[in-house]
């Protein structure tokens, strides 16, 4: 399991990696654009000589970030802050290199377009919030440097802000999708592993245990005892490998009653049910399962060991009926009322109480020597 998770955590970058590559490509393209603009405009700059070192720095930082962001472990605050600060620095340098006059005349800064790359990087790494912070910081720097507060200048900043928002949102979606994918993969791996185990157990252990039980059933003394024990283990194991996985994940509010009842199956308790899942609201299913558990406890407490119990689950359109019948000693008719009158509410409380709370009914039929049958019926729909 952990290997699977690990592999996917490694690919966590997996789904984000294309975004980082896109940022690198954008930065390189922007660098080309900046270079062209510098070459064309250098004549009008206040200090043309300084333009080349700044351009060299821009190119160097483009190379550094391209490699650094490619490594998922480095996409952390130090690099992101450095990215933002250096880009702001290049932009601010325009004040001295290009000069106030040229900037006010509408000449672009030395970081034009290139300055959007760190904003997108922040949005990818930090989501919408990170993107907005970086966009505001970069936008403010841009406006201050250009000192040119016309509509076009503001539009640039707003566009940057919107891009940061969009990218941040998209990254969040990617994260959700990835979490879902990981979960699905884990679930599938677990199911497959379980099926494999069930197959193996079925093909080997289960068959041998059943055989031991069968061959030893007629023997006296220790051999017979061993056979009986083998039989118990066989039943427990069978219940384990055939019990259904609770599908609660698939469909939050509902649970399969059979997944809850499955654990009660043993060499003395047999459970009959439809082949399909018996869906009930999770709370109802849990209460019904608890009531069945109470009925089974009751059999174990009052009847001779080895008393057989049959549980039947019937799934009807309007309601679900669970019958618990044993072939034990039975309860004298007056016994239940007597117990209730004495304030001993064992069966009454845990079975009747639970079921009546769900809007259901309980019928207990019993006669001495004929066993007891408890029938629980709960409505499927919401309690009106």
């Amino acid at each position: 399991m952990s290997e699977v998770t690990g592999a996917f955590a490694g690919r966590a970058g997996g789904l984000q990696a294309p975004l980082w590559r896109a940022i690198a490509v954008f930065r390189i393209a922007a660098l080309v654009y900046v270079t062209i603009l510098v070459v064309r405009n250098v004549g009008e700059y206040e200090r043309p000589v300084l333009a080349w070192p700044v351009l060299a720095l821009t190119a160097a930082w483009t190379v550094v970030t391209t490699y650094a962001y490619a490594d998922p472990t480095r996409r952390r605050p130090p690099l992101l802050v450095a990215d933002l600060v250096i880009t702001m620095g290049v932009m601010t340098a325009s004040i001295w290199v290009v000069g106030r006059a040229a900037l006010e005349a509408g000449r672009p800064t030395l970081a034009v377009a290139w300055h959007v790359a760190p904003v997108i990087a922040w949005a990818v790494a930090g989501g919408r919030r990170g993107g907005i912070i970086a966009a505001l910081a970069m936008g403010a720097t841009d406006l201050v440097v250009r000192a040119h507060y016309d509509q076009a200048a503001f539009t640039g900043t707003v566009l940057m802000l919107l891009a940061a928002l969009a990218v941040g949102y998209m990254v969040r979606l990617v994260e959700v999708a990835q979490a879902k994918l990981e979960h699905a993969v884990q679930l599938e791996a677990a199911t497959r592993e379980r099926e494999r185990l069930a197959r193996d157990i079925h093909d080997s252990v289960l068959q041998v245990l059943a055989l031991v039980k069968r061959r030893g059933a007629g023997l006296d003394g220790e051999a017979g005892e061993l056979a009986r024990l083998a039989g118990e283990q066989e039943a427990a194991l069978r219940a384990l490998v055939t019990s259904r996985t609770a599908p609660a994940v698939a469909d939050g509010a509902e649970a399969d009653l059979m997944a809850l009842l499955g654990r009660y199956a043993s060499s003395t308790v047999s459970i009959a049910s439809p082949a399909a899942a018996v869906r009930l609201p999770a709370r109802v299913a849990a209460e019904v399962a608890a009531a069945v558990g109470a009925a089974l406890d009751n059999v174990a407490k009052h009847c001779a060991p080895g008393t057989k119990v049959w549980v039947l689950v019937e799934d009807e359109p309007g309601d679900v009926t669970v019958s618990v019948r044993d072939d034990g000693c039975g309860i004298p008719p007056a016994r239940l009322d007597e117990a209730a009158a004495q304030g001993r509410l064992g069966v009454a409380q845990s079975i009747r109480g639970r079921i009546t709370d769900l809007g259901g009914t309980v019928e207990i039929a019993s006669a001495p020597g004929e066993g007891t049958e408890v029938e629980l019926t709960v409505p499927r729909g919401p309690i009106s």
Partner: protein
Amino acid sequence: MVVDDHPMWREGVSRDLAAAGYDVVAVTGEGRQAIRIAAAARPDVVVLDLQLPDVTGVEAILGLLEAVPGIRVLMLSASGEQQDVLDAVKAGATGYLLKSAGLTEFLEAVARTAAGDTVFTPGLAGLVLGEFRRLAVEQPAADDGGAPKLTERETEVLRLVAKGLSYRQIAERLVLSHRTVQNHVQNTLGKLQLHNRVELTRYAIERGLD
């Protein structure tokens, strides 16, 4: 005839059957081979493990019934995978027993299968009940009388079987003869198998007409 892929089981079951006076005509661990052998050996009863390495339980049963019409199939299964058991019964098996059943229970089941009776565990009765309810819900008041229905009596009997009562106990409780109880159980299975055959045919026709 005994079909089981587990050698120890195959041997044990054959030995028990032989000791009880049955003539075990063939023993095999594979479904396809079982179908071939059955065609030649023509056994009355096949004790069939539901989980075979080469074919599904349903394929094995359909193959056996085709090779020897009227052959009786008693399924044995170690795990009791519910859908598998239900499908096998719908395909035409007439009995089902968990491998954890005792020897006497097993021999009785074989005897009843041989006599043409159905052998139901409480678990199987629950499955069959559930299947009828599912059919009733999924094909409500079908246009062509589609969904099979149980009579009230049949439902009653099946519920009691599912609650673990023996046929004798059911007969006592409902004041019926043992034979009548047996017939009711058999009828439920017959309806389900008939419905299954009709469905298969309809499916085949639909596919063929495409």
